[in-house]
């Protein structure tokens, strides 16, 4: 447990020592806050709906920037040898890296809390959808992180890891758009079920359904498993 915490802390500290993390926070908060307040004053509604509608698209661009370095940097600098000879299991290494990134996304989301708090002061804010949306946004961010972390283990090039993660995440997002996921056909239902967007939209309504949570946990679990598998396979290369 101590070794797990040590890797977790190292990774988390590296986020706060990295310029890209601050760009992430600033871009995320400044642009979303600006768009949010513009909508609030134009529409005159005390709702966070517009804010959370934009989050999947923002995460599509920003989360791969967080995950791209998780393994590819270790591969490129050779520090993966140091990690793999420490008495820490592959599962713990993967989990420590993932949870540190997930913690960072949680911190970023928490930084936006002044928005709903201010909104609740100036109007009548329904906290149910806000809480659901925050949970959904965090799970969505974690899902992209798990995907990006696995992809970064497959390459030494961070740019490749970023682009491939963004592309695949885009496909998962696109599956949930009304043009694809609406309708009664099997394909439309399958797209609806597989899309990260539809489950996020469902949580954003304020109903925390087990189905949506399980979807995200399964998504995360599959890609973390693939990450462990990639490390193990490298061992037996």
């Amino acid at each position: 447990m101590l070794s797990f915490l040590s890797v977790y802390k190292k990774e988390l500290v590296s986020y706060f020592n990295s310029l890209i993390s601050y760009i992430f926070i600033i871009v995320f908060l400044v642009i979303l806050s600006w768009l949010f307040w513009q909508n609030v004053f134009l529409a005159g509604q005390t709702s966070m709906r517009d804010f959370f509608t934009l989050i999947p698209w923002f995460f599509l661009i920003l989360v791969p920037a967080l995950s791209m370095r998780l393994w590819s940097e270790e591969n490129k600098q050779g520090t993966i040898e140091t990690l793999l000879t420490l008495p820490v299991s592959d599962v713990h290494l993967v989990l420590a890296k993932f949870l540190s990134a997930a913690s960072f996304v949680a911190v970023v989301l928490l930084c936006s809390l002044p928005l709903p708090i201010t909104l609740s002061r100036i109007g009548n804010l329904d906290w149910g959808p806000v809480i659901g949306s925050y949970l959904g946004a965090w799970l969505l961010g974690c899902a992209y992180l798990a995907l990006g972390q696995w992809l970064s283990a497959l390459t030494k090039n961070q740019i490749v890891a970023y682009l491939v993660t963004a592309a695949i995440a885009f496909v998962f997002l696109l599956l949930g758009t009304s043009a694809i996921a609406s309708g009664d056909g099997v394909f439309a239902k399958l797209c609806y079920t597989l899309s990260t967007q539809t489950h996020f939209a469902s949580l954003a309504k304020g109903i925390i359904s087990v189905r949506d949570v399980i979807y995200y946990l399964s998504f995360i679990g599959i890609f973390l498993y693939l990450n462990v598998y990639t490390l193990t396979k490298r061992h037996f290369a």
Partner: protein
Amino acid sequence: MINVNSLTKKFGNTTVLDHLSFQVKQGEILGFLGPNGAGKTTTMRILTGILAPSSGTVSINQHDILDQSLVIRKQIGYLPENNPLYETMRVYEYLEFVAKSKQLPDITATVKQVVHDCHLFEKITSPISELSKGYRQRVGLAAALLGNPNILFLDEPTSGLDPNQAAEIRKLIRNIGKTKTIVFSTHILAEVQAICDRAIIINQGKIVAQGTVNELISQTQGKVQIQAEIEGSVDAVTKALQQLPDVQTVSAPKIHQYIIELSGKQDVRKAIFELCVQHHWILLGLRQSDVSLEDVFRQLTTSPHA
């Protein structure tokens, strides 16, 4: 302490290690010698559990490297080739991270001890990215020493260092080696002669020679080498030189240059001169010297059948 039995490693169809077998006893300093690409780093990676062997077994302190990798990782220290470090960390942060990951009981005392052993005190707060190569190597060694492991694997620890830095690291390794088992790879013979109790020479994934440094040196003692410069047909000169008495091998590394190794002490320089006169070849130079360990290493690691 370390038992390697018929260790083979293949990457696709390429055999990198071919049935290596050797033992390392407690307290021994073993030099792992070989040219670049001989399989030294692959062997190190297998011994430290980073890579799994394709076949064969490796056991350290009677623990199998595949079945009890985590147990073994607690008992070893490893300095990888090129010494990869986390550039953004400061020296004490890095050492603290490694100490915590190794689950050591008294982190502060342990870190202090290795900082003292590796003479790192003045650089303890420096960012790793600002350290000279010599200090970086000390940081790598200090990290490997954390937890006082009984066995150290050092992969080319003096590679890329200037002669002064290399001498300092060698001195450090010699001091550490008084109480620990060390396996260290290098392609510098002087290092093996200066530090090691025993050496293994590998080439193309196979062991081509092993023994104590004195044994390896004694194998070469009494042997004589002649360097001749002769202008003439390479095939004809080589053939003629091979027919001289006591000639063991003849090689032609450069144009007109021949290295003749003799099995005995007989002086064949006169015979070479007479051969040149007889065949109307021009003798440009002739020099006789004793065969050194370096010559043996070169011979063992350049022969296609080695």
